[in-house]
């Protein structure tokens, strides 16, 4: 695609990571900045709650990307059983659309924030589709 700047890589991220609450902001890396620096686009997952229709809409979008040469990852929070990714509901929606669930990376809150930021950046920088898939789609 001539003159098109897209990065072909997308991260699913929980609302709590995109919009950390004031009390937790200092315990998390600035994930949006790290994603920007690595050229990723964002698909925001909704905050805790039912969101049945919205999750289906998000699964449709992930399927469209996954079927057309885009690399999709998911960034969650290590610790609570609900890490913001709605995984138990999202995975069946993805499988029904013929999509293998994205690779997940977990941020460890309250650890060394700089270190967590570097760990996330390294994960994002390393992740992409195999070269053959990239050549097939990214022309």
């Amino acid at each position: 695609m001539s003159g098109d700047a897209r990065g072909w890589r997308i991260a699913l991220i929980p609302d709590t990571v995109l919009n950390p609450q004031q009390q937790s902001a200092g315990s998390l890396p600035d994930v949006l900045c790290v994603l920007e620096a690595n050229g990723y686009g964002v698909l925001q997952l909704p905050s805790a709650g039912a969101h049945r229709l919205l999750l289906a809409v998000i699964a449709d979008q992930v399927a469209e990307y996954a079927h057309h040469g885009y690399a999709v990852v998911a960034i969650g929070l290590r610790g609570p059983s609900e890490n913001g990714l709605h995984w138990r509901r999202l995975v069946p929606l993805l499988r029904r659309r013929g999509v293998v669930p994205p690779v997940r990376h977990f941020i460890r809150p309250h650890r060394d924030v700089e270190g967590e930021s570097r760990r996330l950046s390294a994960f994002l920088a390393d992740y992409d589709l195999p070269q053959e898939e990239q050549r097939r789609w990214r022309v």
Partner: protein
Amino acid sequence: MPQSEPRKVALIANCLLNQNAKVCEGAHYRGVVTPVVEALRNRGYLLQQLPCPELAFAGVRRRWAVYEQYDTPAYRDHCRRLAQAVAPLIEGYLRRGDEVILIGLDGSPSTGVRFTSSRPDWGGRPNRPEDDWEVVRGRGIWIEELEAELARRGLPPLPATGWALDMGRLDEAASRAELEEFLDSRTGTAGSRGGEPAS
């Protein structure tokens, strides 16, 4: 449980956080549209990404189109379904007294707020740049349907503006200045549950 402080929430067009959603040859950034996100975060806005109606309808390999081409009953039905999916979130923000604003994509046939794209005679094989579209005042179809859904729920019109990504040539500095002026004009309005919609 005590009601916490009202927050500032920005509903933002899907592609302002993810340029991979743009039509072929339409992405100006790798992923996040940094100036928009910076302007919002610097002013304390929470971000709420809207779904991309075109991506889910016509796919990620779609070509560009104008308002008239998307103005079909099937596409409007699709936009209404998306609006019904996201409206409960928006309603939740408004009911708790948060200030909610909308940042769309001016010039877009779907997500335009102040301007959309028009060419009633477009059709068949695209021939860009010869077939240039016209920018006209008005909402895109997705924004029309989203606003209609919010109105059906008895919610007030949202103050709104657009980032001029689909207006032809992008003047990033001017767009940013315009966005910041819009945001700064709203300083101190958290909890107002709406306000005047942008023209």
